């Protein structure tokens, strides 16, 4: 299942989604969802996470120091191709 997260940790629905994520689910942090990686990385532990790089970089963060895989929009399409189910 592809889980799209577009708000940061202040959003209760995003927190619900992340808690619900099974180890095999593909989480994608996009838009302000990237703030989970910045301020609450603990919530991502043990999860399969990818970050949309253009959204991450536009907010001033550097790909170099990022421990999660980064994807561009073409890469996001690949993740969408791989996951027929979605939670978004």
């Amino acid at each position: 299942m592809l889980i799209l997260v577009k708000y940061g940790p202040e959003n209760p629905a995003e927190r619900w989604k992340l808690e619900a994520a099974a180890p095999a689910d593909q989480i994608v942090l996009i838009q302000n969802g990237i703030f989970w990686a910045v301020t609450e990385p603990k919530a991502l532990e043990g999860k399969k996470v990818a970050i949309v790089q253009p959204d991450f970089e536009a907010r001033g963060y550097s790909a170099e120091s990022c421990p999660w895989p980064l994807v561009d929009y073409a890469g996001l399409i690949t993740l969408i191709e791989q996951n027929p189910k979605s939670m978004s």
Partner: protein
Amino acid sequence: MEKLKITIQVMAPPYSYQDLDTALNIAEAGLDKGHDVGIFLFTDSVLATLSRVKPIRMDRNIPQRMQAMIAEKGLRVDICGICMDYRGVSREEIIEGATPSGLPELAALMATSDRFINLMA
């Protein structure tokens, strides 16, 4: 990869929030990879179809970008009709190629799409 039918639902108003830009970026990447991509515009996102939208000079023009993607890349755009009525959007003012529709069309899109991506409120 086989050709997939991908539908993206948007709800937030353009410009105030990033969702329309995100939807168009995902759609464009999908179309460029050969997929069949449609956007369903729900609630305030219907404003993105108004051809009269006039941003300041240094800002992007979202309706024009969407219209170009319809014409040049085959993007499908459906608009919730009741949502248009609620926001005073008339059928005469929308960009070419965008189609006023409604929840029955959304249901059909959900039933027939291989992938469904939603940008929540």
